[in-house]
């Protein structure tokens, strides 16, 4: 039986937006051991089953020189025969041919926009009858669209990012119902990575390349070999996933396929060239808040915020009013914000982080150190997107390594309050 961990609203339920939000997050070992086999030519049956279950199916599609999750209707909509090449500041996809469906590791978007929307309407405000802003108002929460979306081709790093966001948005005293609503409507079909790109480092963060939790169904794509045609090892990760797989009446995965799967994951993990010292990085950064490397990286950083936009865990947002032209009504709206934006650290007449050095340090120290104190886990899942999509190719693993070479604590800050 599935042992579901439930993230619940701890302090009551918001009647308008529904809840509590039950999120399956742990995959039972028994379920994992029950591996099934899906022929490559039968992949369409999976799509049909998802559609029949009432889901809008989305998967990676080639768009604007990258892949992005978008609606798919048939297997041919997927990036069959495509590969991505990623490096610091570089992303290319190329059609190499062959019938591999999930050869592209990932694009810039990931799962985040599906749960933490880039722009979310929060409250509807109706102004009072009088003129002017003091004449009273009524405020009601706005429900996000109740969509049931099946996402096909979600990577282990994306799932790890989702687990982090579940913790941030649902795990504290004020669970976020807008996130919860969108989250509850997702059905996640993961695809394990047997191929990495140069910016990947999930193995060192212990989040991949094999999906382990937070999926409903997982797939491992295998090429044809030794008389076995191309296809997928299929596992369920939730009761809903198991129900779907049962409906497909799939045969057990052959032993040889499981062996090839294992060696595929092992080779993928071993092939990653980047890493972070997961267990030491928090203390290392805390001990080096005044390291000269912050000045050095600030010479290259453009403070554009790309890293925060593509990061699967960055959650900073701003909330503002969006009034109608006649000022009869308004909406409270939240939008993604970035700690690289000067306004993020601006209060009346004073900026806390005026230098790029301050803002890059805030991002990295928060992501890799403060996050651990706040949410009992790192804010980094090793997807490498911030390296790929940085226009100048800043590589956080390299920055941490540079600090580690001369750290820790070559110049610990004096806790005397006298630094001005």
């Amino acid at each position, binding site marked *: 039986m599935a042992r579901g961990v439930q993230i619940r609203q701890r302090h*009551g339920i918001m009647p308008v937006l529904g809840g509590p939000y039950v999120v399956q997050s742990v995959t039972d070992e028994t379920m994992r051991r029950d591996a099934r086999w899906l022929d490559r030519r039968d992949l369409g049956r999976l799509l049909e089953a998802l559609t029949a279950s009432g889901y809008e199916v989305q998967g990676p599609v080639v768009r604007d020189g990258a892949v992005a999750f978008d609606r798919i209707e048939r297997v041919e909509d997927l990036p069959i025969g495509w590969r991505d090449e990623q490096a610091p500041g570089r992303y290319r996809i190329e059609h190499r041919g062959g019938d591999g469906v999930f050869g592209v590791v990932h694009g810039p978007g990931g799962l985040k926009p599906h749960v933490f929307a880039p722009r979310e309407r929060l409250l509807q405000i109706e102004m009072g009858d009088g003129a002017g802003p*003091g*004449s009273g108002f009524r405020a009601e*929460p706005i429900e996000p669209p109740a969509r049931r979306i099946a996402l096909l081709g979600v990577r282990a790093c994306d799932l790890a990012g989702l687990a982090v966001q579940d913790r941030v948005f649902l795990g504290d005293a*004020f669970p976020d119902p807008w996130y919860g609503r969108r989250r509850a409507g997702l059905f996640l079909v993961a695809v394990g990575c047997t191929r990495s790109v140069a910016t990947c480092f999930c193995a060192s963060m212990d989040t991949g390349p094999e999906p382990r939790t937070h999926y409903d169904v997982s797939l491992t794509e295998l090429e044809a070999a030794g008389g076995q045609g191309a296809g997928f090892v299929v596992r369920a990760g939730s009761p809903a996933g198991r129900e779907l797989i049962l409906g497909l009446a799939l045969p057990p995965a052959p032993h040889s396929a499981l062996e090839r799967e294992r060696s595929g994951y092992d080779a993928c993990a071993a092939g990653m060239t980047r890493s972070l010292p997961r267990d030491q990085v928090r203390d290392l950064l805390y001990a080096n808040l*005044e390291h000269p490397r912050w000045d050095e990286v600030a010479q290259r950083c453009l403070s554009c915020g790309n890293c925060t936009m593509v990061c699967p865990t960055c959650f*900073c*947002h701003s*909330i503002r009013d969006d009034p109608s032209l006649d000022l009869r009504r308004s909406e409270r709206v939240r939008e993604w914000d970035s700690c690289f934006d000067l306004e993020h650290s601006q209060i009346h007449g004073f900026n806390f982080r005026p230098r790029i050095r*301050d803002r890059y340090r805030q991002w990295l120290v928060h992501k890799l150190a403060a996050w651990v104190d706040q949410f009992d886990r790192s804010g980094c899942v090793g997807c490498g997107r911030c390296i790929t999509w940085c226009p100048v190719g800043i590589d956080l693993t390299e920055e941490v390594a540079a600090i580690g070479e001369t750290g820790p604590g070559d110049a610990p800050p004096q806790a005397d309050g006298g630094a001005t």
Partner: protein
Amino acid sequence: MSAATALVPEPAEIVEKRSFGADIHVYRLRPLDRTARARFDFVPGQFNMVYVPGVGEVAISISSDPDDEDLEHTIRIVGRTTRVIARLETGDVLGLRGPYGNGWPLHAARFKDVVVVTGGLGCAPVTGAIDYMFRRRRSYGHLTILHGVKKASDLVHRARFESWRREPDTTVLLTADQPDRAWRDRSGVVTELFDEIELEPSRTVAFLCGPEVMLRYAVRTLRGRGLSEDRIFLSLERNMHCAVGLCGQCQLGPEFLCKDGPIFPYRRVARFFATRGL
């Protein structure tokens, strides 16, 4: 409570407005729904989000006595939203949600001397705490209140300071950076007032509130006078949009000021507070 409930502002009427120059206004607010007042019960040091529909929302500390029926907010014009608030008058309606954050350690400070150091409007988050201690006067030792303002007209709670000054076993020192001719108190910055006070580190607790520059100097001075880092409490300020620990705007190192603070023992935030630009 979910974040949705938490984000919905409660309409509240301005029942009194007092203005100090063009920039500073003190509002007494009363929720239109009379049953709502209990939800706004607060401890001194906490803050509310004050909302102007169609304009925006700002975090403002509550400056009144917790036992007062009305909620008092002292608001200085510093931006778009506060500029609109300044135009509102008695009878107008604002939005309120809160209270958020923690309060001053008034229980832990019992039977100790308390030194309150504030600068500018920084006194607003601590005036309620001072009232609280005076109402329980025998539970506290010597009270020292050091308050600095830039201009004489910034001293918005003068009547309160004068009444505290008349209390026994109490020292109140006021100073202005730019005193006018009518100013009869000290001139200079608030940290210079430390030279005039007695301080017994083993039985003293300090409450600090004001601009960060002032806080840094005050912490340095108090530590120099032998006060330990866990007896110095700071009320800190950052951008706040949600006030429930989700928007990420108010972070200082691992702390979310809105839910972990805004009041911290100095020891807890020392490393991060002492690092410039964090």
